């Protein structure tokens, strides 16, 4: 592949949305209220919409006759490069919203930079996604506040979720080889530059939600290199089921 770095770079963006969209999609019909159900399904829909645009772009760059679905569903576990954060399970609604919030803050600031990409397709996708992701962030922020500053029970559950997921936040700002190459070409976003503002923003909202900012400095990483938590394999088993059980067919 001529443009291996660009291809890998796109997967690094798209896989996050794919895996998070899949996580949210499995909640449809089981939410705490009809309104949250509709909202989570909607976020999932947005993410899958973005995913399709990214993989279609990646498929063109790869130029090896693979389709968006081949890229989405026919890789091995080690070839998925999403961050560990998004593959964490839907433990409860607090975890679901904390995961969403911790990702959304990053996602929005990332897209705002990606808009400036020299790759016009990426910049167009970013441009279109910003509106959607701003809404995701508003939704998850509201729930951080409601649960953090709601009842004693919800406060405790939200604190637990934030504490549990905190260890996966640092990885958002790690640079891969593809990142470095794409930053050099003016195509990619330098994620290291997003880190400070991220923790400031997250900290301010947690504070407003009467939650404590975790102090732990121990962070997990590996997703960007394809070394995942045990959760991802099961998620992929469902995601890939039809493509694996009925190979080479059209749906």
């Amino acid at each position: 592949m001529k443009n291996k770095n660009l291809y890998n770079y796109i997967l690094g963006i798209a896989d996050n949305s794919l895996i998070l969209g899949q996580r949210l999609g499995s909640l449809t019909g089981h939410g705490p209220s009809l309104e949250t159900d509709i909202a989570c399904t909607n976020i999932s829909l947005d993410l899958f919409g973005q995913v399709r645009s990214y993989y279609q772009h990646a498929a063109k760059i790869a130029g090896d006759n693979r389709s968006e679905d081949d890229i989405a569903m026919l890789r091995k576990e080690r070839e998925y490069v999403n961050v560990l954060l998004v593959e964490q399970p839907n433990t409860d609604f607090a975890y679901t919203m904390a995961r969403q919030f911790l990702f959304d803050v990053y996602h929005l600031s990332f897209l705002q930079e990606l808009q400036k990409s020299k790759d016009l397709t990426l910049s167009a996708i970013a441009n279109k996604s910003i509106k959607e992701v701003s809404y995701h962030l508003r939704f998850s922020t509201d729930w951080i506040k409601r649960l953090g500053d709601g009842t004693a029970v919800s406060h405790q559950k939200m604190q637990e979720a934030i504490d549990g997921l905190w260890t996966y936040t640092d990885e958002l700002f790690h640079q891969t080889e593809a990142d470095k190459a794409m930053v050099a070409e003016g195509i990619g976003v330098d994620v290291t530059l997003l880190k400070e503002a991220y923790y400031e923003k997250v900290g301010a909202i947690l504070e407003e939600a009467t939650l404590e900012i975790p102090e732990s400095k121990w962070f997990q990483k590996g997703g960007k290199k394809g070394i995942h938590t045990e959760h991802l394999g099961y998620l992929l088993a469902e995601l890939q089921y039809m493509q694996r059980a009925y190979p080479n067919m059209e749906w």
Partner: protein
Amino acid sequence: MSEEQIKNLEAQFEARIARDEKIEPKDWMPEKYRKTHIRQMSQHAHSEIVGMLPEGNWITRAPSLRRKVALLAKVQDEAGHGLYLYSACETLGVSREELYEQLHSGKAKYSSIFNYPTISWADMGAVGWLVDGAAIINQVPLCNTSYGPYARAMIRVCKEESFHQRQGYEIMIKLANGTPEQKELAQDALNRWWWPSLMMLGPTDAESIHTEQSMKWKLKRKSNDDLRQQFIDQTVPQAELIGLTIPDADLKWNEERQSYDFGEINWDEFWQVVKGHGPMNKERMKARVGAWEEGEWVRDAAMAYAEKKRNRKEKLAI
């Protein structure tokens, strides 16, 4: 109010409906009208919500991204239908919580079709094509029903249901024109969903209660058997067109009636499922009740937070 006055009001009320006027929430209405509408509309709302489960079951396993997006959107539509039907119910002075309570306790019914399992991807095609298809046949006449909020909700719902129906049929076309294995999936799904879909149009007229009153109020405009015949006549050619076989050995075009004759429906199975003993009744209720109970702390928190926010605002105002 004297008995005579009430009689008078009732007569005026029936006359309005006969003139095709819409009844609105603030209008006077007989208690029986109100109760019947709460029952039918909430049953419809519950069906939308429970109906999310069999299709939600395939979201994580949809075979392509395009199909996944379409399925997510469809299930989201059903949630939306539930939402505006519950709202329409609330105009009659009943809360959504009360209605949920009736669903969870088993007092309220929902469409029995959702008590069948979705066990293959082709079921997403069959459900859209047949179940949404039968729902449309049931619901299109309701776009002209007498209660305004219900009629307006139905206009919107029917538009989306016909989109779902086409989408489901399109899944079936793709499978039927695909590999032998895919065609087999499609035929198997049709075999399993055909009879339950016919049952969806309700018990045969001889066994159906409340029909006469419902006809007067335009809650029902055609008999169950007529609707069923309409569904069959519409669907059989669609199956033939894509080379699938309706699983009914007695199905035959009747030249004289210009309609299909069809075989005996297994009403014992219908009543078994209606009475709560279908393949998935327990699981569906468990999922609904579970979501509600597990969500309680979340709803409590949202209320507590809103309350705190209000108090803070009031303090600021002082």
